[in-house]
């Protein structure tokens, strides 16, 4: 049994931890929160230079072809540091969608640029509030032109391309690729609960777009893309949970009340032990997701949904209990716990909320082969 990352992946993780620590991301996250420049361009350049943007893109498309193990450990470090970069929308979604359903021409046109970090991508699915379902899609793709409104679109303001879910003239769901520098694109940055991962509204008005072909049902493609992204996001959430637990534990050791450190009280100990348990469950389920991603399993739904459920629960709980452990100071604007709380809650929604993934988990259980 070898249920641990490879030496190479662990090296990438260590290197990532050191690099992002040196970048001191939290002040950048705070800058974004306060409407200032988060210096995310420099950070983006840095992680591109480290090869992260091309880690899972095959060499024939300009990537490094290291594979999903690398992407998992990078995700964990991005979550741990809260780095304000459009990595997930580019690497987990846009690049993955192109790899799964792009034509050779589409792949050649964009994957090398995504791999080098020269271009950023996003995935435009939602059209406002409400459940994630094909019924909620009304954007139109007719005669090579896309019209409609998508929001929220993660990192949509800075992206160069978008994979957009729309309906064709016959009302069928389609995936299309859009160059966002083209005509008929207007973008609005949105106020959100986590400014360090910006969201946009994108209005398309007869914007030129090209169809992403696939033999499978396009909505199945969407779900399968979400499954893969859910596993990677789970690693971000595991990283964030670990950061919250580390922060809360350190504070519980140094803060004194009633003549002793608050961490010697069982009320605090048991709370943090519960966070540890949630973290271990989430990490272990994310590991199985990584293993299935690496082994190229086509049906990832059960492991992805399981990882997603545990990791949402862990990060939301850890970020909330981190504030609670800090007491009043944890609720202040200037203290860091709020940054994790914002990220935890934003990540918990971005790929569809807990209820959506729990439902997917049970659906996957129901169609599990009986042995």
């Amino acid at each position, binding site marked *: *049994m070898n*249920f641990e990352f490879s030496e190479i992946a662990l090296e990438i993780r260590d290197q990532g931890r050191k690099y992002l620590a040196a970048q001191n991301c939290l002040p950048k996250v705070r800058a974004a929160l306060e409407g200032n420049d988060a210096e995310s361009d420099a950070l983006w350049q840095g992680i591109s230079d480290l090869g992260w943007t091309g880690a899972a893109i095959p060499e024939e498309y300009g990537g490094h072809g290291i594979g999903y193990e690398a992407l998992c450990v990078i995700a964990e470090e991005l979550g741990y540091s809260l780095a304000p970069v459009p990595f997930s929308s580019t690497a987990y979604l846009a690049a993955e969608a192109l790899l799964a359903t792009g034509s050779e021409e589409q792949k050649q046109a964009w994957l090398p640029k995504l791999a080098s970090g020269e271009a950023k991508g996003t995935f435009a699915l939602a059209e406002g509030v409400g459940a994630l379902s094909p019924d909620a899609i009304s954007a139109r793709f007719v005669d090579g032109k896309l019209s409609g409104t998508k929001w929220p679109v993660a990192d949509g303001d800075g992206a160069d391309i978008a994979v957009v879910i729309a309906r064709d003239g016959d009302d069928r769901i389609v995936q299309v690729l859009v160059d966002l520098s083209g005509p008929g694109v207007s973008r609005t940055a949105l106020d959100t609960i986590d400014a360090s991962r910006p969201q946009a509204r994108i209005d398309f008005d007869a914007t030129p777009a090209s169809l992403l072909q696939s033999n499978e049902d396009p909505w199945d493609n969407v779900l399968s893309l979400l499954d893969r992204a859910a596993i990677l996001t789970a690693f971000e959430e595991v990283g964030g949970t670990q950061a919250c637990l580390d922060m809360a534990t350190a504070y*519980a050791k140094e803060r004194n009340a009633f003549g002793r450190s608050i961490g010697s009280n069982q009320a605090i*100990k048991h709370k943090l032990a519960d966070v540890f348990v949630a973290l*271990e*469950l989430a990490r272990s389920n994310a590991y199985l997701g990584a*293993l299935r991603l690496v082994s190229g399993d086509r049906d990832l739904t059960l492991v992805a949904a399981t990882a997603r*459920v545990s990791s949402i629960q862990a990060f939301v709980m850890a970020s909330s209990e981190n504030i609670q452990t800090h007491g009043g100071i944890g609720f202040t604007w200037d203290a860091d716990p709020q940054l994790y709380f914002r990220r935890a809650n934003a990540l918990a929604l971005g790929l569809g909320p807990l209820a959506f993934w729990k439902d997917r988990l049970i659906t996957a259980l129901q169609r599990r082969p009986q042995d």
Partner: protein
Amino acid sequence: MDLEDTKVEAEYRARARAFLEANCEPRSGKITPAEPYQPGTPAMQAAKAWQAKKAEAGFAGIRWPEKWGGQGGGAIQEVIYAQEESRFNTPPRGVYEIGLGMCLPTMIAYATDEQLERYTGPALRGEEIWCQLFSEPAAGSDLAGLRTRAVRDGDDWVINGQKIWTSGAHFCDFAILVTRTDPSVPKHKGLTMFFIDMHDPAVEVRPIHQMSGASNFNEVFFTDLRVPDSQRLGAVGDGWRVALTTLMNERLAVGDEPRPDIEDLIAFVSDFPLNGKPAIEDPVVRDKVADWYARSQGVKNARFRAITALSRGETPGPGASIGRLVNAIKQQEMARFALELMGAGGIVSDPAMAPAQGAFQQSLLSSPGQRIAGGTSEILRNIIAERVLGLPGDVRVDKDVAFQDIGKA
């Protein structure tokens, strides 16, 4: 990354599986309610016969030294065997778990070769069963507060006092026993360990009737029990360290989700009707079952990480310790939820009338014990907080006080 065995592990697994296939039925969807063990009952005879068979085939004492009849193997073989065994319907391991997993390893560490020559073989073959006399009425979570007195008298010790929550004492032949030999020093320092014959007339065992209806635990009374000094394990006053050896031997919990487990619950809600459809179609049922499934898988996958560490000869990370904490409360929640679905009829536990032969009712009534036995969930949280997270210990007001003066200030 893979979940595959190494070549050596695969060979071991194949050998274990072949042995089990030849001797047992595979696990079935039917949940058989656990039968309490009593001396001489068919269930006890089956457990004894199974232990003898395992010993003969080389699947008992997997980690014991070969010198004492063991296999000289590592934790990884033990885990592989337990994984395989959990796929079959075997007599539960409970009868032998404490003796072979905790008492005899303590004996191996502290008893003389002559004694081990006498005791290891019969224990391994299941002919003699051992229990562990640790907890007392006034010393549960705070084990070092125990009061059973051992007083030196010539070559013997004379022991008086009471133990409680002793699993299996009513069918055991021998036991290891921790006593207080010196009340004038702080509590951890005045303890001494012995092994004793449970059939001595000075030992009285009284089964405890548990709220679940079963009697797995006992009270054990000692009235002027004479034990030769040669049955002392470790130095006088060193009993705490010896007791820790015993507790450290608690093996990596494997397959410790008691049935009905998550798969049994999924089977139940897939079949049980709610509003004209299988209950699993109901959004509330989906929400809850997904929670329990994710937690159940988390424990299972954490174990894979621990096994990976073992397989590399490393010490498993702290994640291995979460299983009991997660599973205990989950069992209680799942059982209650299954009854909730049954409505008023869920009150009925009669196996002839209740779904799943009343297994969920029985699980509900035994679940509170899971949160207490072998260290309460609260103590487990303290251990995680102090040993894993490194949070400071609680203030201990009795730490440097002579045991006889505790509570007198």
